[in-house]
């Protein structure tokens, strides 16, 4: 009885290899993450009531650096030019968020998101109360999006490219 049920269920398993849509779903979730993170760093002040502001986060990076050089860099270059860097952060996060949600320039968005996640990890790993694994998760997700055809479906890239197809998940066509 159990054996026949199991055999029946096994027969219904998809014959195709890994589908592309779970990674596409992850790509969209990561895009929403970046867009949601803009809420507390909106121009022109790059802060919002009740949240730690962008400037305060940067000051925490200086106060609790995981790498001394990085803390010095933030203190001597970024904070004196806060408005410029705040705009850069805002636009970069907006671009990555939109790129991942809509699948526009997915690989570039994922690569930029990967570098920004590494930056967050290096900057915040030693800040008290932060869980560094959160940033490693971000690094991992962007790496996975880059390594797969996450932009091959549910994306604008798929409408204008014939190169990105779900088969890219399995280049050998297995």
């Amino acid at each position, binding site marked *: 009885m159990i054996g026949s049920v*199991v055999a029946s*269920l*096994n027969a219904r*398993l*998809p*014959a*195709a*290899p*890994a*589908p592309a849509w*779970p*990674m596409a*779903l*992850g790509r969209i*979730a*990561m895009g929403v*993450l970046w867009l*949601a*993170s803009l809420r507390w760093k909106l121009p022109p002040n790059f802060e919002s009531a009740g949240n730690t502001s962008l400037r305060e986060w940067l000051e925490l990076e200086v106060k609790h650096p995981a790498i001394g050089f990085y803390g010095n860099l933030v203190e001597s270059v970024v904070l004196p030019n806060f408005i410029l860097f705040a705009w850069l952060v805002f636009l970069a996060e907006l671009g990555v968020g939109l790129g991942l949600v809509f699948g526009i320039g997915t690989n570039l968005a994922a690569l930029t998101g990967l570098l920004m996640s590494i930056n967050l990890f290096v900057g915040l790993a030693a800040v008290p109360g932060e*869980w560094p*694994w*959160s940033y*490693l*998760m*971000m690094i*991992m*997700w962007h*790496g*996975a*999006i*880059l*390594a*797969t055809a*996450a932009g091959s479906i549910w994306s604008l890239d798929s409408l204008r490219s014939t190169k990105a197809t779900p088969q890219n*998940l*399995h280049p050998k066509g*297995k």
Partner: protein
Amino acid sequence: METTSTPTPAATLHRGSLGTAVLRVALGLTTLFTWLGNVQDDFYDSANLPGFFDWAFKPVEEGGNGATLGFVDSIIANTILQAPELFGWVMTFLELFIAVGLTLGLFTRAASIAAIGFFVSLFLVYYGGEEWIWTYVMLAAAAVAVFLNWGGRKFGVDQFIAKNRGESPAGLVW
């Protein structure tokens, strides 16, 4: 008695992808190192486990996390907190199973189902509080992607199990 061996279908062997393998290993290592830290801190001890849930739902003004889902608080009060020693052991072995399973790609389908339940539970416990909720979205989404994309069939022990044993019962173990 003569036995005949049925060749393992190609789809069984070639499920999985590089991106999903990246997700799986990173998720496994994240769980493993967190588990090790928890064991060292006696987190799962029946004397300490209730303190975590007390902190999770305590208002921010009183030094807690300030989670807001009352029904989750109620479920925990009527289950875990009624038998903290039992649930402490259950969590110890469940998290170890998830960590080892995902890191090695061993019984990945079962481990990723357990991981989905575990990370969604954490999401519900922390929801509305001070914790960065996206951490748990990323963890749960990664577990979902690993499950749906047969994460153990690339660079995982499951690849060899599937080769020798064929498809797992209902596709839910490896």
